[in-house]
């Protein structure tokens, strides 16, 4: 439009100039003069056109992108994002260009203001919502629709120095704050400090939420020894060791570790000797581009377990996970072999209420393999072996083949069969079927911890 106006103006000027030119004394001299003037005007026209082209380029770059054809709703269009004050390549920044920029910005100011009004909402945290429900049937436990959890996760930066996140979990029994923590983001020397309620850095699958586990139920050894998820109220310091190889070291101090660990009351004050202290080291080896091995060691030590017997407890574990991830087909081929071995060293009452305590070293483990056959089907097998924390001669073994069907990245169905040997009750074996349906809406982050 602007370009057309200028071209018309120049053509009009040219016509007027031709019409208004003084008649020369001789026709030949007049023709020569006219030709020279025409050439001059042509050159002027060329320059104006060139300038207009450059200005059009500037306008194009400063304008929002055109909407896609025939949109069903007002388009969410991303405007190009030139750096402030930086001119496009090949375009000299002249006062005219600056003036043009100012004019265009003034023109689009109402739209910018309208957009700016929505900016405060951008400070809202990212929010995700996860539904996890399981139908189960077993010989001993009968059948049940278990509304396992409806979990809301929120996270955002607090300021340049820290971020915060929270996981609020509603089950059929209650609603609880599963995690609510502050994590530093700008400490020197590769350090981070985490404080609040969070999953302590103990082992591997203890730090996974139920819906993120590779199988339906949390391994028995984690339920019995850790107390389910490794939830703890406390503080944790983590150091990414500044060497070319990945080594992560964690030290932590908590009221207790384990959401369902009932050895200690979470809500009372205690002596320093009654906190639980954690040390963890983990590393990873790239055996090849497509093969890797993650190895970790964890130790949670409580000098005095107050509610039970004032004697100490030590829970040590090693975990190792082998992964085969073919780079060119990672989304539909792969293999994982995950293992955790735990040793619980604790004085336990020989029979409930008799006040007679005996040192018991109980060992438990799980091992699972999972194959990625297509983008949707992930079959796997889980084996568990757990010695009872009160009597190591009383052991439980579980065998669980399972099949996960990913409807999409955000929805999953899982069928699992579990055969149990050595469970509680007079009939010490059981067979159970589980069908799990899990879905996530809203913000969804692929976290490093859950990889």
């Amino acid at each position: 439009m602007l370009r057309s106006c200028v071209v018309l103006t120049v053509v009009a000027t040219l016509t007027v100039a031709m019409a208004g030119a003084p008649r020369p004394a001789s026709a030949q001299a007049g023709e020569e003069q006219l030709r020279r003037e025409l050439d001059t005007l042509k050159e002027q026209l060329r320059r104006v056109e060139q300038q207009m082209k450059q200005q059009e380029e500037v306008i194009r770059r400063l304008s929002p992108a055109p909407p896609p054809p025939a949109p069903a709703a007002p388009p969410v269009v991303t405007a190009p994002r030139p750096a402030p004050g930086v001119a496009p390549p090949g375009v000299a920044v002249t006062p005219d260009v600056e003036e043009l920029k100012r004019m265009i910005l003034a023109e689009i100011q109402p739209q910018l203001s309208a957009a700016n009004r929505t900016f405060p909402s951008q400070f809202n945290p990212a929010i995700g919502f996860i539904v996890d429900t399981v139908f189960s049937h077993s010989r001993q436990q009968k059948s049940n629709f278990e509304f396992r959890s409806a979990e809301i996760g929120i996270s955002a930066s607090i300021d340049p120095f820290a971020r915060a996140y929270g996981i609020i979990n509603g089950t059929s029994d209650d609603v609880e704050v599963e995690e609510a923590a502050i994590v530093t983001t700008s400490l020197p020397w590769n350090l981070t400090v985490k404080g609040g309620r969070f999953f302590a850095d103990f082992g591997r699958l203890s730090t996974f939420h139920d819906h993120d586990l590779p199988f339906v139920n949390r391994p028995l050894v984690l339920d019995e020894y850790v107390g389910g998820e490794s939830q703890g109220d406390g503080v944790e310091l983590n150091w990414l060791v500044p060497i070319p190889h990945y080594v992560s070291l964690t030290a932590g101090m908590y009221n207790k570790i384990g959401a369902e660990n009932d050895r200690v009351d979470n809500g009372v004050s205690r002596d320093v000797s009654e906190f639980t202290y954690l040390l963890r080291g983990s590393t990873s080896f790239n055996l090849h581009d497509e093969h890797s091995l993650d190895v970790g060691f964890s130790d949670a030590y409580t000098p005095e377990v107050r509610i039970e017997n004032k004697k100490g407890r030590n829970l040590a574990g090693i975990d190792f996970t082998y992964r085969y991830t073919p780079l060119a087909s990672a989304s539909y081929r792969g293999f994982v072999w995950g293992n955790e071995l735990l040793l619980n060293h604790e004085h336990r009452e020989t029979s409930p209420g008799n006040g007679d305590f005996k040192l018991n070293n109980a060992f438990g483990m799980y091992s699972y393999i999972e194959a990625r056959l297509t983008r949707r089907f992930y079959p796997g097998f889980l084996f568990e072996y757990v010695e009872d924390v009160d009597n190591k001669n009383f052991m439980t073994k579980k065998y669980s083949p399972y099949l996960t069907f990913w409807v999409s990245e955000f929805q999953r169905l899982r069928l699992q069969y579990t055969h149990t040997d050595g469970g509680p009750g007079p009939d010490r074996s059981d067979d159970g079927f589980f069908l799990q349906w899990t879905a996530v809406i809203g913000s969804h982050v692929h976290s490093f911890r859950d990889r």
Partner: protein
Amino acid sequence: MTRRLFLLLLAVVALVPADAGAAKKLRVVATIPDLADMTRQVGGDAVDVSSIATGVEDIHAVPMKPSFAVVLNRADALVLLGLEAEHAFLPALLEASRNPKIQRDTPGYIDCSVYVQPEEVPTRLDRSLGDVHPMGNPHFNLDPGQARHIVRAIVEGLSRLDPGNAATFKKNGDAYLAKVEEAMTRWQQEAAPLKGKKFVSYHPDFIYFAERFGMVQVGTIEIRPGVDPTPSHVADLIERMRQTKTDVVIREKHYPASLAETVAKSAGAKLVELPTMAGGQPETKTYIGFVDYNIRTLVKAVTGG
């Protein structure tokens, strides 16, 4: 116990390589080999560049290895495609890297999409549309016409971090773009048989390439971006391909072969396997080699060569 721990920490710290005195090069990590190649061209001897992906991966599913966190931890700059292309691995790796120099909106965070006009910007954000990218289709690296925007972002990014070499970066960038321009003239001629050819790809990642060389996308094997197809979608797609006389099915090399083969065979179209990044094939180590390969392979398919 405490003394042993202290000695252990001391030993670990002693292992930290001391690079004081060495020629100070910018340590740059690029997310994909295309960007690594361009950064090497622009940065020359002033940069030391590595790439997270090797080129054979799906950019939306690059495995998150702990070793990447270490590489990023030591980086001065991160060069990424942007438009959330790396959403599956980069945000978590950035957090794990503990490196404040390369976090979002810092000078070391070089987003190569800043000057790109995005295609397929969604009119609505909803997961029923699949794994949509809110800022638009991020696969612009397949279109060599975008190289000037990418190189410009890299030149500006490196110049922010090393102003003393800004003139060199500009000169190197211009020289590289001249090479791309020269190749572009050749590509436009070579790709002439692609004009008007109809194609189906597994994922919508050939949008920018198609627009550049005049190809027409009929559909995708995925029912929605990132969502595997249902049998009815495949049947509908094959029918549409027959009706529109679709010429080519592009299987990006990181997607399963069997379904793409079935679709191509059923619809009477040629099947072509193409990389979506430099390094996806042995002969595509450089960005120019990558574009060369894709054009040559497609032209061969549509001309029956």
